[in-house]
């Protein structure tokens, strides 16, 4: 097992390097350049390219970047916030995105579990249909529409929560964004919980447990839900990364200084270093979480471990 974990970590590092290289190549393919403002002439653009070392071959750029990255230097922004070190730019923004995304995951996962559980237990009743409708609305109304509707109702009309993010009231002003972001998670989790629960409830060991006289909450929580949780985790893991790296639209609407809007701005203004750094952080989080899930999955589910050993 230890050997397996070690091997997985090693390959993850190589995967990350490969991703970084792919990102570099993608940046080369990107049309436009960070410096082609209408008001610049050809010579100035060349001067800027030379200044930032963008005139060098991509391989040189890549190794330089990796070298700098190992020393914690992610380069500077070319456009969004000119010449600002990206580490400084991200330092303040990532925690905000993680906080709001984390809240959204927590709210969404809890509500989703509950909704899915109820739907499965009351399978084929009106409650089940109602839960389906709620979760479908959750996936079919875009989060920015939710965000604006929430802001209009609870911020503007009722005045319960602040409409915009503010550093002075981080808790209060995180509520509306978190809730509007959590809708999608809630809906997906509810859907998966429902189907997994249905499968587990129909399985033989549940029949056995039931015939052994176990009933009520013990049956559902100790036997059914526990087994249903494993596949749910697999679904939840990528969602966590998506949410924590920020949601562009909700950030835009609530004026949250997070990384999602930064990434989109960076792509649109060809701010290479910002795109690469943010994408890389995203990738690292994603691969990290996948790694953890894989390893734990191996511990939990003997079939997968067996399959790996069998090779």
């Amino acid at each position, binding site marked *: 097992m230890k050997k397996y974990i070690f091997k997985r970590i090693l390959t993850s590092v190589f995967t990350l390097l490969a991703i970084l290289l792919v990102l570099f190549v993608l940046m080369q393919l990107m049309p436009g350049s960070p410096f082609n403002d209408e008001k*610049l002439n050809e*010579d100035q653009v060349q001067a800027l390219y030379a200044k930032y070392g963008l005139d060098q071959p991509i391989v040189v750029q890549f190794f330089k970047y990796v070298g700098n990255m190992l020393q914690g230097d992610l380069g500077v922004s070319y456009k969004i*916030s000119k010449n600002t*070190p990206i580490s400084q730019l991200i330092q*303040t923004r990532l*925690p905000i995105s993680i906080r709001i995304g984390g809240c959204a995951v*927590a709210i969404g996962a809890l509500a989703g579990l509950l909704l899915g559980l109820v739907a499965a237990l009351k399978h084929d009743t009106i409650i089940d249909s109602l839960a389906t409708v709620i979760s479908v609305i959750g996936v079919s109304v875009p989060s920015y529409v939710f965000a604006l509707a929430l802001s209009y109702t609870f911020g503007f009309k009722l005045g319960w929560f602040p409409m915009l993010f503010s550093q002075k009231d981080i808790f209060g002003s995180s509520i509306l964004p978190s809730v509007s972001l959590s809708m999608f998670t809630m809906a997906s989790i509810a859907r998966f919980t429902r189907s997994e629960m249905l499968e587990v409830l129909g399985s033989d060991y549940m029949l056995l447990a039931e015939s052994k006289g176990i009933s009520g909450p013990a049956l559902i929580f100790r036997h059914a839900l526990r087994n249903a*949780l494993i596949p749910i985790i697999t679904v939840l*893991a990528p969602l966590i990364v998506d949410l924590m790296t920020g949601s562009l639209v909700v950030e835009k609407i609530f004026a949250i200084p997070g990384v999602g809007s930064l990434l989109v701005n960076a*792509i649109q203004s060809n701010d290479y270093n910002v795109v690469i750094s943010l994408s890389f952080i995203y990738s690292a989080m994603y691969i990290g979480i996948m790694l953890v899930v894989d390893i734990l999955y191996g511990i939990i589910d003997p079939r997968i471990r067996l399959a790996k050993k069998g090779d």
Partner: protein
Amino acid sequence: MKKTKALVALVLASAMVFGLVGCGDNASAPANNNTAAASNTSAGTEATAASDLNVMLETPVESLDPQQATDGTSFEVIANYTDGLMQMDADGKAVNAICDHYELSEDGLTYTFYLRDDANWSNGTPVTAADFVFAWQRAVDPAVASEYSYMMSDIGQIKNAAEIIAGEKDKSELGATAIDEKTLQVELNVPVSYFLSLLYFPTYYPVNEEFFNSCGDTFGTSPETVLSNGAFVLDSYEPAATAFHLTKNENYYDADRVKLSGLNYQVIQDSQQALMSYQTGALDTTLVNGEQVDQVKDDPEFMAIGAGYLWYVSPNIAGVPELANQNIRMAMTMAINRDAICEDVLKDGSAPTYTAVPPQFATGPDGSDFSADQTKFSDVCAYDAAKAAEYWSTGLSELGITEITLDMIVDADDAPQKVAQVLKEQWETTLPGLTVNLVVEPKKQRVEDMQNGDFEVALTRWGPDYADPMTYLGMWITNNSNNYGFWSNAEYDAIIAECTTGALCTDAEGRWTRLYDAEKLVMDEAVIFPLYTQCNAEMLSSKVTGMQFHPVALNRVYKDAVKAE
């Protein structure tokens, strides 16, 4: 064993759900030390009637380095805490700021500026001529690669600026020298009639060398790494912040003039949220988008503010054979119903424009607006469907074809896309056989495609950099990188040369007349199809008075603003 596994699963699940983030419960976010600063300062200002003005921004600040900044937002914020030699008055004219008085030599080539004695940086050191020299040298230094260096060379015509930018001379040879601590001498290549109005442009703002060097690479990235010599002091800021604050500079030489206790900036990218915030009183001024004008047009607090940008369609004359035909171009420009675009689609007060130089920014020697008369080119640029169709069929028969398909590139923003859709509809209904496909691109890519001539028709805009028609007319000289249509006319080039570096640069009136001639050439040949001069629909609280709005350089100036309680 099985139990442990199930337990691991549960722990894992709950860790995923709860463990990662304590839902905002510990409000000690790493980034909120500014909050304290902001609230302290607002509490610190004595209990006068003065209060903070809450201002909405559409985009975050790109740079607080005056020589690196290029966008209106950054300029506005920099100007809040920095004074240059000149400042804008309510009409946009240049009046003394750091400059106490100046002398101009007879030949119009040498300015001598005498700096005021009471101007100090916020760290106590006086503002000196050396600060200007240092800043201006930075602006032309190839190592700094300032995007606005052409403000010094092509536009300001400061001696040796162009050579330094090209790397041919050392930056110390720039024609700006500190005679003594408070005297700055500037030498120009040719007389520049609008030179004083360049001096309120942030590229010309001073930077204290000693302080700059003490900041290392971090200059302009936090309140600690900027110095103020202006009306306000930056007291909370981080790069690309969505909210930041400036407080009144009590040591400002003109501190009595400043009535506000501070400025509270809030970046809001969604216009509906912005208007709702404005309605709840969280903002004192905000932008409104065209869609919302219906909601606010009866409100006395609603107003349209000139933004200066001329939006126009640029046909690729050299690259597309059909567009090289002048009749085709005439047909296209005359088929555009500019009134409908402004009144029915944009609705923000933007003015239909029928001249290559937009109105309301360049005032001539006689005090009149260069483009006040919008009908002067009405025989070549006005909405006339019948005439357009006539030109069209003439053009088509000259080309020997019956239909044309054109791709028009458009920015991915809201307003240009709306305008483009209307243009497409107007062209296709008025000009039989014309098909226009809209290609939406991010602005960066659109600019690159245009500069490479890799387009057919493009919807683009140009904002004036200084209050002279040349900021527009300079674009269409042969081989200018912003001459997107690659149009070339020897007569035109000659006129422009005459007016910039030739005989006419000291003869204000003669120059003015020749510039009209140049504009006429552009319009007669339909080099561009001007559409409208952009206005921003804004809400300004009735409590606020004295706030200045300008289409050029600094869009909003707060030095005289007063907010009643």
